[in-house]
């Protein structure tokens, strides 16, 4: 019984590792896409992404990602007053963020098609 429980724990750990491997390198483009047409504040972005169970992104881990995107010049931020609470930090897409997003869209489609072909998941989608 102990061994069975350990097996379950192992599978759970492997599942978490797979999810985090898939998340890496793609989550940032989900963030960029969120601010493509309108500026959004941090809590809004974080809440929205954490809602997506597949992404399995813990809220607090998204702020360091936002920081990196800002430092990398893909997003800009500015603080603004809020009607019902503390000041909000709004994120917006910079021109280089916009081109990074466009580039990802092209890359992602061919990447996805290749993986689907090799793994045999093409018919499902």
């Amino acid at each position, binding site marked *: 019984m102990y061994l069975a429980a350990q097996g379950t724990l192992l599978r759970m750990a492997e599942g978490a*590792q797979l999810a985090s491997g898939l998340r890496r390198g793609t989550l940032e483009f989900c963030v960029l896409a969120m601010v493509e047409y309108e500026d959004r504040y941090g809590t809004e972005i974080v809440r929205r992404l954490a809602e997506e169970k597949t992404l399995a992104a813990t809220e607090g881990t998204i702020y360091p990602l936002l920081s990196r995107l800002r430092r990398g010049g893909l997003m800009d931020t500015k603080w603004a007053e809020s009607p019902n609470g503390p000041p909000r930090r709004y994120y917006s897409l910079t021109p280089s963020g916009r081109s990074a997003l466009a580039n990802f869209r092209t890359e992602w489609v061919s990447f996805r098609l290749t993986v689907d072909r090799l793994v045999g998941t093409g018919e499902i989608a």
Partner: protein
Amino acid sequence: MKPNQTDLVGEYLHEVELRLSGLPLLQRRELLADLAAHIETERAERNVQSDGELIEILERLGSPEVVAAAAYEEAGGARPAATASAQATYLPPPGMPAAPAAPKRYGWIFAALAAVGVVVVLCLGGALATFRSEGPPEPASPAEYATPADPTSPATPPSAAHSAPPATPPSARTP
């Protein structure tokens, strides 16, 4: 805002800050300001009153260990400067982002083993004490139960807390 709620938020942020010592000052400040603003915004927008609701907000944010690990990962492979401190054990090895989640799942096993160990030691101690006093048989049996029971409950959490973090990294690597 109740004073104990301020304490709770302050304590959480402090726990995060303790684990960020290897990050550049401005990145550290930025993350703490972002987290503080997040908590304040959630409280205002969800009209949080109770401690329970506040704890939920903090739980959704994630444990200080998980948040700090993400900060190091996004800092571009920056390693904690003060690796001499025990806090370094909370950080996953580079290239293993799932590590912070995995040890948690095994941690309880070691915590439970440690707790069982403490109980066994205390029971033996109690039995030994009663064995030595031998004289009056009447108070011996209540003493046997009373002695281990009292120190056990306060003794278990600290010992579990101490043994869990060092015990977890090897367990994560065993499979």
